């Protein structure tokens, strides 16, 4: 929501004043390809990367980090059952309090804060991966 409105306003700004570089963004490569007269505003903005752009976590990386975290969690009863689809209480034998601890560990691992309601919905590894991927500020 916020991201789309940001892009829209940035695009509008570029369209309104194509000559000015916006102060928050820096051109990645200013080469002969980008001569100011020929480029369209949208293409111009694509060649620019904001400092606020998100780190781009891949799904495999997120999954691997969450699985590692669970492997080190001493209450996981059966490590062999650990997989990307495993459910915290059904497969791993964790109760709701343990789930809270797992969510806390995930919060720390990715340096984000998960609100109560969302935290309540995380019951399985793939739900957690999905949630982390939907957060632009997860690291």
């Amino acid at each position: 929501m916020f991201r789309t409105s940001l892009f829209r306003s940035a695009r509008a700004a570029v369209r309104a004043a194509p000559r000015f570089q916006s102060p928050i963004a820096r051109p990645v490569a200013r080469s002969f390809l980008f001569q100011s007269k020929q480029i369209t505003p949208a293409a111009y903005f694509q060649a620019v990367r904001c400092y606020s752009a998100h780190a781009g976590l891949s799904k495999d990386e997120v999954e691997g980090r969450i699985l590692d975290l669970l492997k080190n969690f001493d209450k996981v009863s059966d490590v062999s059952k650990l997989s990307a689809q495993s459910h915290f209480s059904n497969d791993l034998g964790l109760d709701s309090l343990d789930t809270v601890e797992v969510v806390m560990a995930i919060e720390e691992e990715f340096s984000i804060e998960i609100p109560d309601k969302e935290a309540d919905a995380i019951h399985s590894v793939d739900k957690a991966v999905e949630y982390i991927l939907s957060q632009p500020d997860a690291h």
Partner: protein
Amino acid sequence: MSSKALNLRHQVIRIYKELLYLGREYPLGYDYFRSRLHKAFASQANLKDEDQIKKGIERAEFVKKEIEALYYLKRYRILRQRYEKT
């Protein structure tokens, strides 16, 4: 689950998280604290009555204050020990 019950559930989870954060500095170690806290909360898991749950939350708040007081005492003792040695 009704919204009231959900609200209570979130309150319980919040106080559980706060206590866990506090327990990291516990003198007997975090693992000791964590297993005891888990047992204490799990033993109250069968509470259904709203007032009973509220009482439980109040008790947890009280325990939280006690742990804070324990840390102040620990710090005071350490400081006193260091200053008396010189």
